[in-house]
């Protein structure tokens, strides 16, 4: 269980926004919280190589190897667990928002209702009981998967992939760039 991670197959994302709303339902993120832990971003429509392209990128906490949010936190409320998850201790969080600005990906949110920081914890309460995260279950395109290392290897083989923190993005079209904002270690795995 503990070594499973999120895999995002960009080929299969269809921008249905199911992950976004599934996340809000699962985590009680009402409109008033102004917290969108999972979001789908659009790249294009654009012309590359005499072809038209329209791509969609689900974005959520990457669970960075060296999380910048944690470095910006003045009270050490953010930590990286042994299983790779970056989690917030809400008891300690003082709601200063430094982590929200400190995250390069826009994955950290300030919950306007609880006045604390919040972000994806890979549906801790689901995954701990053996159920995949809600975004994964509801993904219509089949782009989101929660997989162990063996399946991860199998799925990334022969395709372009980039591992960012605990999250692997995958494409059979774009070679994908490791994002080197600050210090999160980006590893490339196979495919290129």
């Amino acid at each position, binding site marked *: 269980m503990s070594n499973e991670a999120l895999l995002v197959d960009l080929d299969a994302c*269809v*921008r*249905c926004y199911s992950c976004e709303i599934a996340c809000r339902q699962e985590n009680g993120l009402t409109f008033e919280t102004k917290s969108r832990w999972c979001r789908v971003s659009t790249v294009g429509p654009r012309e590359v190589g005499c072809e038209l392209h329209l791509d969609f990128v689900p974005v959520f906490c990457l669970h960075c190897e060296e999380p910048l949010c944690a470095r910006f936190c003045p009270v050490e409320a953010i930590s990286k667990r042994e299983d790779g998850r970056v989690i917030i201790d809400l008891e300690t969080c003082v709601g200063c928002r430094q982590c929200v600005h400190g995250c390069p990906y826009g994955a950290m949110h300030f919950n306007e209702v609880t006045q604390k920081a919040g972000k994806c914890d890979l549906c801790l309460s689901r995954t701990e009981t053996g159920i995949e995260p809600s975004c994964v279950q509801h993904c*219509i395109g089949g782009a989101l998967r929660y997989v162990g290392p063996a399946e991860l290897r199998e799925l990334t083989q022969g395709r372009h992939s980039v591992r960012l923190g605990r999250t692997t993005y995958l494409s059979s079209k774009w070679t994908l760039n490791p994002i080197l904002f600050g210090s999160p270690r980006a590893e490339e795995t196979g495919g290129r």
Partner: protein
Amino acid sequence: MKPEISCALCGQPLMTAKMKHRLLQVATEKKIKNYEEWLFLCGPCKLRKFSQRLVGDDLKKVPRAKPVPFRRREKLEVVKFAPRQQTTVYKSECFSCNQGCDAVVHVNRDGRVVKVEGDSSSHVTKGVLCSKGLASTEHLYHKDRLQYPLKRAGERGSGKWQRLSWDEALGTVVEKLNETERKYGKTGIILATGTSRGWLLPFYRFANAYGVQYTAPGTAQCALPRFTGSTLVGGTRFLENPDHEHTRTMIVWGANPTITFPVKGRAMMDAWTRGATLIVVDPMLTETSSKADLWLQLRPGTDAALALGMLNIIIQEGLCDREFVEKWCYGFEELRKRAAEYPPERVAEITWVPKEKIIQAARLFATEKPSCITIVVAIEQNADSLSTCRAIAMLSAVTGNIDVPGGNLIQMPVPVGLWLNADLALSNLLTEEQHAMRLGSKEYPLLSGKHTVSFPPSAFNSDVWKAMLTGKPYPIRAMYCQGSNMLRAYANSRVVLEAIQSLDFLAAVDFYPNETNDWADIILPAATWMERDFVTSSDQVSANSAHLQQKTVPIGECWSDVKILNELAKRLGFAHQMFDTDEAFFDYLLQPAEMTFREFKENGLIKLDWRYKKYEKKGFETPTGKVMLRDTKLENLGFDPLPQYVEPAESPIRTPELGEEYPLIITTGGRVPVFRHSEFRNIPILREIVPDLEIFLHPDTARKHGIQPGEWMVVESPRGTMEGRAAFTPGIDPRVVQVASHWPGKSNVNVIMDNEKCAPVVGSAQLRCQLCRIKKKVDRVQ
């Protein structure tokens, strides 16, 4: 504290100077590199920047084929307790649209619905659910929900209402309808509905037992042409059931199922992921067409020419399934001749699709078998929608892809009499006189005439508005509208508004107050799918199964639509032809399965195993027992028995003078992932994803008019003007604009759409192919 610092990219207020100072301090102290790149950007800008960088522009294609996505399956009890969440979980069926996706509803100890999820035990959805379904609790508990019957307490449209009891409300409706009947006869009354939520058949039954005609946008404009098309061709609505699971080649024709039809979108994407070829016919680069292996970007409204062109290539190149054609097709020779009138060069000229692509698509579809076709509404809104639907159905027939694994499947005889069942609809009660009086029955026989083949006959809506406004051919003075926001759903909204305003009486059943029931005299509150029981079976999504919907919570005094109809019937004097209770109706539906609703509730599912080539036993359900490539029914009605292409009524080619004044083709009805028709724009977590109407146009076209991306712009037609925000895409022809329908107020595109020039036989408005012009919007504060 005011945020003095703005986002470096978009300029939105971001943080205070103090915060900036603190962040810089931390960044320096902890030696954080490159922080300038993101530290002073807002969340959405970071997101955009991240995704753009991640994807990059280095295109290097590798094979995508890999195992199908894992979809969790588990057996699920009808009601169970979930210890993790401390909730009672009800197995049910989401009806946020009218498809019916298996879903589970979590109810907490206080009896409140806290969450709706996909049902991972479902063979239909494999656990997925769309954004609309997942947001169901927001819909259920929305502060604006109508919870009590209301009576108008001021001028019409004043928004002043007075609460009253169901008894008083229904009493008033009955009194007004009876009064109208006394003055004008039954023809003075009309019923109306929208897409409905599973209760279309009881609605038809109600209308037919009452002896009053009804109209609906969801017939001529959606469902009826394609149901009629494939029923004429193959005796059943086989085109509704592409077997993605076993297919090798998929054509998705004028549809974007990944965002509009999750059940089909899910299956389509699973097939695509394992390597099936995807051909998409769409004028625009969409969520679905962006995945296509072959994208046919056609001129809106020319689908029939494309289908006939493909038929011609398949026949000429000898790629037909000869055995199937010889044994099971009627009129092949005539079709061959007709199709020959559409050689690739001509079709390319009509459709704007390059000849090579048309040939490639035809060959792929005919040779890389099994192949299936997915269609939805877009092909039903052009100059000859029935021909279009029939020609597409014939593609499946001549290639031998009907009812074979991986083709388009004939629905299984699920023993639940719900789907377009003439007995349930009591169509036999209709008299010759009623058939003759129905508006549109002469001109549009397969919409409004006696011999419709899919839906029971309904009135042609443009004639309904005319009758209301002019009293001709007879006056219509009272309307009962169940589940339709007519002012957004029908073409030419201005006429619809005038017509509604002219009525003596309007009763409306709905979830929310809206621009249509604003003009009503009585509003009745309907229950959503979470507040009622039901048995559902749909040949669009569950063609081999029947599913259970369970009541979880009550909201105010909302009634199920079936109950409203039953109770009205009791007061109108035909209780014996409706049902005493909802449950009595479900028991009736389940009679063929020899069980009661109570028994059905025990496991909540009736499922049949698929059988293929069902036609081999008794033939196709057509006059010849074969697939009708040449149609005798249409011929008898005086129409062309073969499919044809008709140029749109408004087009740069057919009406060049109008084309000069209105040089752009407007195609409407492209969908937004988070909304369903006119619904859900009032749900904040959905609305913030798409806050305003986006008008899609080519950057070159916009530039000519000085329109910037994201700016408000105006679209004009001879009917009027409307506006939305410009969304640039190179994925649309510079001569075309795409405007989503069903937006409220000034963004309602139906205001500028024509409803007079309709397709023959079935009367569909040409919503996908009219003419318009655009301009910059100058006076709106953004």
